[in-house]
Structure formats: structure tokens, C-alpha cells
């Protein structure tokens, strides 16, 4: 299209935007009569335009229809209207083929995590963490990575609906006027339900509304919210407070059922800080932190703990109290608690006790009391004012709303985000209550269960489509700027509230900007904020606080039946990500199950309820498991039974979020809806469940790893995982090389073929397994960066998942409480790669930098390379997995990476597109690629910086230094494949006192 003519897409869109579907085709003629349209049409489709002038025949009409669809796509993919500021010093003008990064933030549970969004020609394609943002430090988790797919999800709601029929935004505005007029007097009957809010702008809007309608009520509900943490802080301090931790200063960390490394608003930061005290480097590291985990289900945090104590959920409070008593000088009943308390006492002011959200408020209060007793308050544990706009007990807030809805007091309910019909506590019967409200409106990304029952549904904008703000876990103000104009004319919560307040014309941009300009921002600071993504120094200041009040004595739990623990799903959260195929197909960290939620029990419990290990082994080997019937508080449900070694006995963990009925084509039908188990007086589970195994056909489970034993008795001594304690390491740092897996060093003369020479670079990777928590951030990052397709449950059952990077999980020791090891496995990029010589068409070959390149368009698909790969990192397209057809997914893809077709092999490339980009830049500047200039997608995402990539030929590079570490080892070294990817052995720091007293564990699995 010519540069001289400025096309007004906005004009087009507005013309199309507010028309109903039936009017659409009629409006095409109207559009075609407009001058702008003609200009555009003639320059873009000259032949068709000619036909149009002559009058349209049938064939041309079809073409024209096609063109109009193409243009609809064109108008959809455009930059936001307002000025957005790229990150750091990047050119502001577009250079085709060059991505630009913008800082923004992803809100989850109300809290923001800073992101950098890669944008190609105004299309956001990849999410990275913002290195400067306090909640991210450059790291990202699976949710952040997968949110890019959420943006382009073709199942997102695209139009305003009125009782299911397509309507318009202006009709909605018209419809709420009588409601608002009715509420004019004092606002009684008008209710707004939001999720957790930290957004200052939204907060001020709510405040304005509450002033305008004094009788109006604001309710909050977040299914996987922070009620317990919040209430615990109130029990401890008398008022709501926000607690943040500094793990860099903690020598001893105690987790009371907390997965602080993988859940919660600050987990990325905590994981980074925690790992900084856990990396062992030869001659540099003199101490390591020590982590005790007391928990029921195995969490990512628990899986890397030095000591893990599996207990029933009901016992945690009592144990917490005992720890408190011990720290205060009391006696302990078990050596575990005695040693733990002694460690806490020895590290006064340098320890942290952290309670998990699933624990009742009292456990949080006790944890804070222990922190106070151990001198941690103000040292490693900081108290600030709440970060949320209006901290409330959300459960009570929702209860109030339901009571009022049932009593008829609610005349109009506006639900901003969330899906309460699906995720409200079972005994509230939110669905029934909602239908008693005369006026119901729901703003959400999907036309979901709640939308179905609302008269009005408004499509919500994705966070990448709109302006907004939110606070980080420490209170830092974070501005969200849009990367793309709303794909489907969605509306932000800010707009809906703006419409309620009355300022209909206020765009989210104006609202957010005005809010901050009203609070001292100016053009310069605004630009800087957008550039950085957050307001520096806006973190909530630490305040004093001391745990007041007595902690009530906790009675020992009365054992009755099996206890259940309810948790949000590790990959689809509370159900909001259920339509995200990347997250559905992401193996859950502990079970490696995809596409389903399973009921997790310990090995002994499984046996007690009639699921023998032999049967389990046989079924799991065939990707099957037994369906078990669980009865809990009168609710019966069939769930697939899954055994996780180390899970507390007498306890079942059930994740919620699955079983969506109106979630989109990915979400619907996957897993089981377990929300009926969530009762308002026991949101996170309770005792008294009964599990039986009825005679039923086994259930198909798409798990990606069925074998996890590395016991030499089972599989022979393979040296896959090498590990020791910190004390042993200090005695013998070279222990990894003494297992008999080393090859005689005869390099150079052990092949008929000449050795490869690397004149420029030799890319390599080192992965520190000590700090890998198995969080999956890298897996989704890889998927997003490399356009990796998902294959669906059936294909995962057939073992055909396509992840280039997988995280292997192995167990060692007692099955009741084993040590867990996570091992991320990308391509090893072998020097003597077994895949290379067996390809008959030379589709996989050695690059000049030593990568095993894969030439997709040369591959005929014999799969010989995959057979011969000892690490099994190659992935084959058995069918046409990549979606070539869905238009909305096309702009999402990384334009630097091929979208693979059926019948070709693919695998990890060390992000060769990033390597080449850096090499080209370096060559332009006539220099070598600097160390750290190339960051692979997995490395960039990793919260604990376990993955290091670089040039091996440069001895000063980070990766070369890691490879020189004595703990560096090669997977399957005896095969002489000489991989470029190597591992640093896992080093843990168990308490010597507990090791001495621990019984010798004989039972292996």
C-alpha cells in the first residue's frame, strides 16, 4: 500500500464494530461506497475493484467476501491507538523483521508481575519477565508464558451479548441507564463483584462509585485467593498486613505447607532469592541455606527441600505450634522438630517460616509468631500495609452477596471478571442465587458459565490489549500498556466502571493516565514509567508490627476417614486457563499428568484402599489408572486415582479448576469439576472422606513420564542423577566423577572421521539441578519461542507430545518420603551426535558452532534419528499438529521459527534464531558475540537461573566456568556422545543431626 495515503483503519473498524451480524453484509456495500474504502480497495485489490466498478458477479462476490474477511483480520491486528513506549533504548519506529520489546505487567490474582513483551510488527509474540520488576527480575512462569496464547485464543468472547444474542456496547450502556437511575437515590440494590484488586485506578473508580451510590456494595471473590494469608495477618497483627520475605538473607527456611517457590504473587522473586543461597560453586560457596518443608501434597518447594515431613493437613497447625513452643524454649516431641527449632534458634534473624495459602489463618499467625520469636520480623520478614485496594475476607464478602441475592436485596449485579458460577463455594449455590437478580452483567474473557446466566455479557480485553495498572507483591506500582488494539472490541474493567460512573468517553488510557497525572506524574515520569514498566521506589514501605494476642491451643486432630486437601491446579490455576492448550498439555510438576486433574494419594493409602502397587505399575505403564469413588460430606465423585511418592498418607490432594462446561473447545470436557468439594466452611478441604475403588474400566491418563525410579536394583546403575549433601561435597568436591561412568579419555583418535573444529563459537549449556524446582516455566517458554504445537490428550496418551524441553523427575529412597530430583532435558547437542550419521538424507547435521541443526524441509521422516538418540529429545510430527488454519493463531507465532508440517522431526535448537540474531548484530559491529548476549528462551524464563548458556570456547564465559566446576557431569557419558548440555550435580544441605537419627531406609521404588 502506498505510503502517501494514510488509511484510517479506526474509521473502518468503527463502521464495522457496532453493527450486528446480520447488518454486516449490508454494511459492506455501505463501506464500499466510502471514499477511503475505495482508495484502499483499489490499491490493495486492483482486479477485484475493477469488477466492483462493473457490478459484482457471483465469482467476484465470493472473492470480495474473502477480501472483506482479510481486511477484518487486518484491522484487528493493529497497534493500540495511544503512544506506547518501548523498553530501554530501542528504536521507536518499526523495522520489519526486528522485534521491539515493551514493558507491561501480567495480573494474576490481582497482583502484577512485570513482563517484557516481544512485538513483531505490532503483534505481541512472546512474553518475558521484566528484569527490573521486583516481582519478576526477568523470570517468568508458565502462566505468564502461556498468556500470549490466551490473547490469541480463538474461543475468546468476541461480542457483547444480551441473553446470548449478539448486541453492542452502546446497547449495554443504554440498558444500564435505567438501572443506574433506579439506584440513583442511594445505590441500594446495586452490587459490583470483582476479583482481588490492587489496581490504584480501579480502586479510585470504585471509590468514586461508592461515593456516587452510597448504598452500593462492592464484593470481592477470587477462587484461589489469599483469604487465609490475609486473615492470618489480621490474627497476628490485629489488622490486615502484607508480608514479604527476603530469602537472600535466610539461612534456614521452614515451609508450613507453602509452595512459595511456585505459587503466590511473589514466587518468581522468592525463587530467585532462594536459589541465590543454594548454588554451590567450587571454592566460593561456604554455606548453603536449608529448607524444611512440612506439607501434605508434594509441592515444587517440598520437592527440593532438604528435609520434607509429609503430614496430614490437620496436623500442620499443631506442628507449627510445637515449633513455636520450641523456639520459645519448649521441648520437642520429635527429633525433626527439635532439630528444626535448634536450627531456627541458631540462625536468629536469618531464617524464615512461611505458611501456605491452603493452611488456615491460625497457621499463618503462628508462622508470623515463630518469625517474631526467631527475630526475623524486620530482618528477613517484612511487614507492610496491604497492597490490595480493599482487603476483605472474600469468602464473607461473597457470602454476604449470596445472602442478599437470595433475599432479593440485589437489584443489579455487575461482575467484573471471574467466574463465580463455576468457582464459588458449593454450598453457596451461587448459580441459583444469581438467577434471582433482575439485572446481571458479566465482563469476562470468555462467554463462560457465569456469562451464560447473565443477561449481559461484555467481552473483556486481555491484559495485552488494554491500559491498566496493578501492584506487585511488594506494592510496587506497575503500569500495563497495551501491545495491540483489542482484537475483538473487548472492554476493560476500567471502561465498565467508567461507564457506571458516567464518563462514557473515558478510555482506559485516559483514565489511567489521568489518575497518575492527578497524583504528581508528568509527561517525563509517565514516559519513564511506561519505559520501565513500573514506578521505581513505589513499593510499600516496611512498617513495624508485632504479633499480638495469644495463639489458641490447638487440639490434636481427631482422625476420621481420609483428609482431603483442595488446591488450585498447578497448570490451569482456578480454571481460568482451562482453554489454554499449552497449559493443559503442560505436565503437572509432581504427577506429570496432562489434560486432567487426578486425586493424589500416598503409596500406602493407595494400597489400603485397594490399589496394589503391582496393578498400579501395570496400569500406569499403559497410561491408565483406576477410577476411585470419593465421598466427602455427601458429595460423591469418580476421580482418577494417582499415587505420588512422598504424599502424606491418609490424605488425598484434589486440584480444582478442571471440568469446565463452558470454557471453550480446549477446556470443555477436560478433567473433573471438583468445586463441589469446596464448602465455605472448609474451602481447602477437610477430614471425613471415604475412597473406594469400584469395578470400572481403567481411566486413560495422559501422563508424560511413567518411570521415575533410578534405583540401580531396578534399572541398573545409570548415573543419570548425581547428588550428595553439602557436607559430603565439601569433603570431596569431585564425587560426581567417581561413579564409574567416566569414559577413558581417548578423544581425537576414537573415530574414523576427523574431529570438528570450532573456529568461532561452540555453544553449550549447563544446568544446575540443585536449584531446579521443576516449575515448568522453561517448558512453556520454549513452546512459545519455538512455535511448538500441542497434540491433545489422546496423542499424549500415545506418547507423542512435542515439548522440546522436558523436565524429568526421579525419586530416590523411601517411597513414603523420597528425595525428588528435577532434571530439565533439552537437546544435548552432542559432539558425536548419534542422530547425525543415521539420517539418510542429511536433514540433521553439525553446524559450524557445533549445534545439531535440524533442516525441516529436508526431513523425510524416517525417525531413525529419534530411535538412535539416547536422550530421546527428538519429537516427530506424526500428524499435522501445527494449526495452519485458525486465523487468530497465525499472528501469535514467532516469525523467526518455522511452523512444522506433518512428517518431520523437530527438536531443541538452543534457540538458534536468537543465536543467529546475536551473531549478525555482532558481525555488523565487527566484534565477537559477548557472553550473556544470547539467552535461550528456557534460560530467560528460569526463576532460579538454573540454566546457563554461552560459548564454551571463551574460558571467561559463565558456561565455561560452570563446565569447569567439579560437580559438572555429562548425562550417559559412557556413550561418548560428548554432549554440549551438561549438568551440575544436585547438592542438598540436610541437617547432620537428622541424618544421624534417621532410620536407614531400605524400601526402594
Amino acid at each position, binding site marked *: 500500500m502506498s505510503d502517501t495515503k494514510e488509511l484510517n483503519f479506526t474509521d473502518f473498524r468503527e463502521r464495522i464494530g457496532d453493527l450486528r451480524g446480520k447488518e454486516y453484509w449490508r454494511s459492506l456495500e455501505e463501506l464500499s461506497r466510502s471514499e477511503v474504502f475505495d482508495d484502499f480497495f483499489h490499491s490493495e485489490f486492483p482486479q477485484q475493484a475493477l469488477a466492483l466498478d462493473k457490478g459484482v458477479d457471483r465469482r467476484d462476490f465470493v472473492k470480495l467476501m474473502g477480501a472483506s474477511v482479510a481486511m477484518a483480520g487486518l484491522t484487528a491486528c493493529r497497534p493500540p491507538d495511544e503512544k506506547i513506549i518501548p523498553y530501554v533504548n530501542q528504536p521507536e519506529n518499526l523495522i520489519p523483521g526486528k522485534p521491539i520489546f515493551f514493558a507491561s505487567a501480567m495480573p494474576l490474582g490481582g497482583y502484577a508481575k512485570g513482563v517484557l513483551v516481544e512485538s513483531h510488527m505490532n503483534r505481541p509474540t512472546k512474553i518475558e519477565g521484566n528484569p527490573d520488576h521486583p516481582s519478576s527480575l526477568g523470570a517468568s512462569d508458565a502462566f505468564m508464558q502461556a498468556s500470549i496464547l490466551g490473547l490469541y485464543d480463538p474461543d475468546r468472547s468476541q461480542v457483547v451479548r444480551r441473553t446470548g444474542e449478539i448486541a453492542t456496547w452502546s446497547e449495554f450502556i443504554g440498558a444500564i441507564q435505567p438501572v443506574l437511575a433506579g439506584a440513583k437515590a442511594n445505590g441500594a440494590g446495586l452490587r459490583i463483584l470483582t476479583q482481588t484488586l490492587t489496581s490504584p485506578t480501579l480502586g479510585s473508580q470504585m471509590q468514586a462509585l461508592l461515593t456516587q451510590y452510597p448504598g452500593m456494595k462492592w464484593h470481592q471473590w477470587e477462587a484461589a485467593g489469599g483469604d487465609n494469608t490475609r486473615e492470618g495477618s489480621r490474627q497476628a497483627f490485629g489488622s490486615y498486613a502484607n508480608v514479604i520475605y527476603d530469602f537472600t538473607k535466610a539461612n534456614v527456611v521452614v515451609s508450613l505447607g507453602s509452595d512459595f517457590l511456585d505459587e503466590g504473587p511473589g514466587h518468581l522473586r522468592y525463587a530467585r532469592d532462594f536459589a541465590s543461597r543454594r548454588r554451590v560453586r567450587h571454592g566460593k560457596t561456604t554455606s548453603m541455606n536449608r529448607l524444611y518443608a512440612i506439607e501434605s501434597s508434594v509441592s515444587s518447594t517440598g520437592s527440593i527441600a532438604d528435609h520434607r515431613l509429609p503430614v496430614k493437613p490437620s496436623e500442620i497447625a499443631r506442628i507449627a505450634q510445637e515449633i513455636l513452643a520450641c523456639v520459645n524454649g519448649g521441648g520437642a516431641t520429635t527429633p525433626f522438630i527439635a532439630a528444626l527449632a535448634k536450627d531456627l534458634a541458631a540462625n536468629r534473624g536469618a531464617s524464615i517460616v512461611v505458611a501456605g495459602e491452603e493452611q488456615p489463618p491460625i497457621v499463618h499467625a503462628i508462622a508470623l509468631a515463630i518469625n517474631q520469636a526467631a527475630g526475623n520480623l524486620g530482618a528477613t520478614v517484612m511487614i507492610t500495609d496491604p497492597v490490595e485496594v480493599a482487603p476483605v475476607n472474600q469468602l464473607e464478602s461473597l457470602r454476604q452477596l449470596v445472602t442478599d441475592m437470595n433475599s432479593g436485596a440485589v437489584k443489579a449485579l455487575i461482575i467484573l471478571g471471574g467466574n463465580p458460577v463455576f468457582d464459588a463455594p458449593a454450598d453457596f449455590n451461587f448459580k441459583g442465587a444469581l438467577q434471582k437478580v433482575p439485572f446481571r452483567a458479566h465482563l469476562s474473557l470468555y462467554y463462560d458459565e457465569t456469562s451464560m446466566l447473565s443477561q449481559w455479557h461484555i467481552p473483556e480485553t486481555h491484559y495485552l490489549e488494554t491500559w491498566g495498572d496493578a501492584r506487585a507483591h511488594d506494592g510496587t506500582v506497575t503500569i500495563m500498556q497495551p501491545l495491540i488494539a483489542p482484537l475483538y472490541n473487548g472492554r476493560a474493567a476500567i471502561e465498565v466502571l467508567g461507564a457506571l460512573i458516567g464518563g462514557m468517553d473515558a478510555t482506559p488510557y485516559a483514565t489511567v493516565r489521568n489518575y497518575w497525572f492527578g497524583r504528581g506524574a508528568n509527561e517525563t515520569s509517565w514516559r519513564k514509567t511506561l519505559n520501565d514498566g513500573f514506578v521505581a521506589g513505589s513499593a510499600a514501605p516496611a512498617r513495624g508490627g508485632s504479633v499480638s494476642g495469644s495463639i489458641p491451643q490447638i487440639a490434636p486432630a481427631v482422625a476420621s476417614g481420609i483428609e482431603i486437601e483442595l488446591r488450585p491446579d498447578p497448570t490451569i490455576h482456578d480454571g481460568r486457563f482451562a482453554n489454554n492448550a499449552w497449559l493443559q498439555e503442560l505436565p503437572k510438576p509432581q504427577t506429570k499428568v496432562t489434560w486432567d486433574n487426578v486425586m493424589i494419594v500416598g503409596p500406602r493409602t493407595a494400597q489400603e484402599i485397594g490399589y496394589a502397587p503391582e496393578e498400579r505399575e501395570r496400569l500406569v505403564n499403559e497410561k491408565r489408572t483406576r477410577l476411585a469413588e470419593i465421598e466427602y460430606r455427601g458429595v460423591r465423585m469418580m476421580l482418577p486415582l494417582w499415587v505420588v511418592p512422598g504424599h502424606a498418607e491418609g490424605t488425598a490432594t484434589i486440584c480444582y479448576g478442571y471440568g469446565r462446561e463452558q470454557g471453550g473447545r480446549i477446556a470443555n470436557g477436560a478433567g473433573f469439576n471438583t468445586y463441589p468439594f469446596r464448602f465455605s466452611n472448609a474451602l481447602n478441604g477437610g477430614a471425613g472422606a471415604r475412597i473406594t475403588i469400584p469395578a470400572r474400566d481403567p481411566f486413560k491418563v495422559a501422563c508424560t513420564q511413567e518411570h521415575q525410579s533410578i534405583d540401580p536394583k531396578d534399572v541398573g546403575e*545409570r548415573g543419570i542423577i548425581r547428588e550428595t549433601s553439602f557436607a559430603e561435597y565439601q569433603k570431596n568436591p569431585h564425587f560426581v566423577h567417581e561413579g564409574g561412568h567416566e569414559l577413558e579419555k581417548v578423544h581425537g583418535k576414537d573415530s574414523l572421521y576427523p574431529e570438528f573444529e570450532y573456529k568461532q563459537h561452540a555453544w553449550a549449556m549447563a544446568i544446575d539441578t540443585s536449584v531446579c524446582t521443576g516449575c515448568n516455566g522453561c517448558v512453556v517458554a520454549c513452546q512459545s519461542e519455538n512455535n511448538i504445537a500441542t497434540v491433545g490428550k489422546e496423542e499424549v496418551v500415545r506418547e507423542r507430545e512435542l515439548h522440546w524441553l522436558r523436565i524429568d523427575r526421579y525419586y530416590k529412597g523411601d517411597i513414603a518420603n523420597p528425595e525428588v530430583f528435577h532434571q530439565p532435558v533439552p537437546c544435548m547437542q552432542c559432539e558425536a551426535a548419534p542422530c547425525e550419521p543415521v539420517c539418510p538424507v542429511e536433514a540433521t547435521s553439525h553446524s559450524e558452532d557445533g549445534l545439531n541443526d535440524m533442516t525441516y524441509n529436508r526431513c523425510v521422516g524416517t525417525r531413525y534419528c529419534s530411535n538412535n538418540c539416547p536422550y530421546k529429545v527428538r519429537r516427530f510430527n506424526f500428524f499435522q499438529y501445527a494449526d495452519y488454519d485458525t486465523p487468530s493463531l497465525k499472528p501469535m507465532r514467532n516469525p523467526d521459527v518455522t511452523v512444522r508440517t506433518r512428517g518431520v522431526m523437530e527438536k531443541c535448537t538452543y534457540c538458534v534464531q536468537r543465536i543467529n540474531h546475536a551473531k549478525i548484530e555482532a558481525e555488523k559491529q565487527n566484534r565477537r558475540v559477548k557472553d550473556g548476549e544470547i539467552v535461550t528462551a528456557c534460560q530467560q524464563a528460569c526463576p532460579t537461573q538454573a540454566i546457563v548458556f554461552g560459548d564454551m570456547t571463551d574460558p571467561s564465559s559463565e558456561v565455561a566456568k560452570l563446565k569447569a566446576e567439579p560437580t559438572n557431569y555429562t548425562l550417559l557419558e559412557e556413550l561418548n556422545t560428548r554432549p554440549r548440555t551438561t549438568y551440575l550435580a544436585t547438592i542438598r544441605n540436610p541437617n547432620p543431626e537428622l541424618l544421624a537419627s534417621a532410620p536407614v531406609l531400605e524400601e526402594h521404588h
Partner: protein
Amino acid sequence: MATTKDTTPVHEVRPVTQELRIPARYLPTPTIGPGHSFATITDHISTIVLRRKTPIGWFIGLLIAMGGVGLLSISITWLLVKGIGIWGINHPVGWGMDIINFVWWIGIGHAGTLISAILLLLRQEWRTSINRFAEAMTLFAVASAGLYPALHTGRPWFDYWLFPYPNTMGLWPQFRSPLMWDVFAVSTYATVSALFWYVGLIPDLATLRDRATNIWVKRAYGAFALGWRGSAKHWLRYEHAYLLLAGLSTPLVLSVHTIVSFDFAVAQIPGWHATFFPPYFVAGAVFAGFAMVLTLAIPARKFFRLEDFITMKHLENMGKVLLATGLIVVYAYAMEWFYGLYSGNAFEGYMLKNRATGPYAKMYVALWVCNGLAPQLMWFKRFRTSTFWLFVVAMFVNVGMWLERFVIIPASLHRDFLPSSWGMYHGTFWDWSMFIGSIGLFFSLLFLFVRFLPMISIFEMRTLLPEAQAHSHEEAH
């Protein structure tokens, strides 16, 4: 010659080039039933093709076999439409029934070449009555085998990239890959086998031409007979060509399956990576091939009343070969255990443990029963001379050799080095339909062959008669 009323045209009599003077007592027992003359042999064999009314059984058999071909066509179509994901292969197990069946069919083919070439060179005259049949079997087995490598690739429409041809991409195939060697080995094998079979057929095609009464049939056979008149010059050329082809085929018997075994031996998967694979595979192939010849010959000789030509002596000899090659195969199985245990290699050790006790243990045990135990019956003359028992043992070996490839291919791949990547393999409907379809193809070709071509070499059978021997001429005078 004067004593017999021989009406055979002169060109059908193979000139005797050997001048042997061996006392009668040292002559081998005739490998042909008593009471036959040149005429009866020619009559009997050519009648099957030319005059005898086509038995209804043949139609039924062909119909069933063609049903298999139909199934094969559907399977291939669906395969091309959907992709090889319709099979049971997956990530640890990249090769499944596609390669199992390929190796199985290729192996079966070996008996034909061995009988035609090596036994010819070794002057084993008893081969004469079964060689044509075995060669046809070879050809059809190679045809069935060839389907698999061609179709098992992810993008079969690019298979031609495996051939070294000048191209605009400026790329050669990768000559280090055993799959590349396979392309040469199998295509050479198919070509030489076809030539060998066809050259051997020429004199008989001429016989059929001469004996056919229908003009069109006469012309058809005549075209393929390439103007054969049976002159001494023709016979001379023929003998040279046939001997040369036999010489060419002989190394192929060894090379094809050696190279097929390299597909595995060159890779480093435990259970594949073993130096004894070439002889092990060749022996296995001959073993499988003879089992298949027995499987086909026993019903065929009954059906077409060929007991006089395919005598018990033939069957017994084949039983002996079965026993000998079976013992080599069992030795190889035993050696796998020796290597695994003696090397102390954890991966090899686990591979064996997994074979014996893992999820496919039943198949491994069945393999030992079929290939290890069943052929031991062949030690006893009673079983060797019973068509029933020969047939039973042959069927066991047919199944056993399929199981052997199953144990080698998916059962090695499914649990290799990293336990995290272990998986399972199960053939799907389409795996089995391809297999059954390829069997259908094989039998369809075989049915057509026995109906339209002489399944026993007429002219070579004639040389087996005492009259055809040089010394008998002298005695007759």
C-alpha cells in the same frame, strides 16, 4: 533315446554338456517320482497352466487374497491422507510394525535366492523342483517388504531423496546412514531376483508358447519367451547368463540381510548395538525363508498333485536346513545373554532383564518356543518326513521370526537409556491392516503365479530324469 517314445520337440531337450563317468551306485537317488519321462513332466506341469480347468479352490483363494489387497489399498490411502500417526509408533518407539514387517518379508525372500543361487552353485540337484517356486516367493516377498520402507517415512512423497541423483538442491544422500545402504541393498536385491527368475523362466515360456492352442495365449507367452528356440547357442548363452546371475545373487543372500541388520547394529540402542547381528540376521532370514517355502510347498504339492516332483526328500532336506539355521539363531539368542551378562553393562543388562520379565516378556518366551524349541523336532526323521509336522514347525517359525523382529525393534526401543522416556508400543488397527494387506498382496501374486506360469521348472525337471544324464545315454546304446 530310441527306446522311449518321446514326442518332446528337440529344442526342449537340454543338451548335456557334462561328460561324467560315474558308476551307477554312486549316483544320487533320483529326486523325482518313478515312471516319469520327458513327456510326462512337460505334460504334467504345463497342463496346470494351459489345459487343466481352473479349480474352484483357486478362485476362492485368490478372492480372499485380493480382499487383503483391497485392505492394503485402503490402509495406504488412509496412511497418505492422515499421516503415519495412524500407526502405533510414538516417541521412544519410532519403528514398529512397519519395520518389523519389512524385515520379516525381506527375510522370507532369502530362501528363494539361497535355493536358486547357492544351491545351484553347489550343484544340489534336489533344489530343481522348488527353485522356481521359491524364487517367485522371493520376488513377491520383496514386493511386500518394499512397501514398508517406502511408506513408513513421514513424508513418503519425498522418498526419492534417498536415491543419489543429481538435483537442484545440490545434495547427496547421507552415505553414512544404514538406511541409505538399505536403499541400495534392497533395490539391487529386487532387481537381481527379478532378472534371475525371469531368465530362468524363458525356456519354459517357450514350452508354453509351443503348447498353447489359443492364439492369444500363444502370443502372450511368445512375447515373454523372447524368441527362444532352444538352439544349442541359446542354451549356451542361457547357461552362461544363468550362472552369472547365480554368481551375482550369491553375495546378495548374505549382503541384503547383513545390511538390514546394520539398521540396528549401527545404532546404539541396547538390544540393537551388537557385532554379531549380520550372521545372526542372515541365518534368521534363511530360517524364515525355508519355513515359508515349506508353508507354501506342502499345500501346493497336495493341491496340484505334485508329490512326484516335490518329493519327501525335498521336504526332508528343507527340514534339515530349518534345523541348522534354527540352531544358529538360537546360538545368537544365547550370545545376547552372554554379552549382556559378561560385559557388565547396565543398559545391556537391563535390556535383557526387560526382555525376560518386562511388559513384552510373553512375546519373548513365545519367541523361544517358536524359534528355539519347535525346530528341535527336526532332529527326528519321523517329524522330518511328516508333512503335517513339517507344516506345524514351519508355521511356528513363521510366527517366531515375526516375534523375533518385534523383540528386537519395539521391545528394545521402548526402554532404552533414560527411564523418564520409556514408553509402550502397541500396533493399531492400521498396523495390522497393513500387515494383513501385505500378506494378501503376497498371496495374490502367488495365486496368479501358479495359475499363469509353470511353478516348477519344466526343463530343469527333465534334466533330473535318468535319460537326461550323459551316462544313461551310453547305457542305452
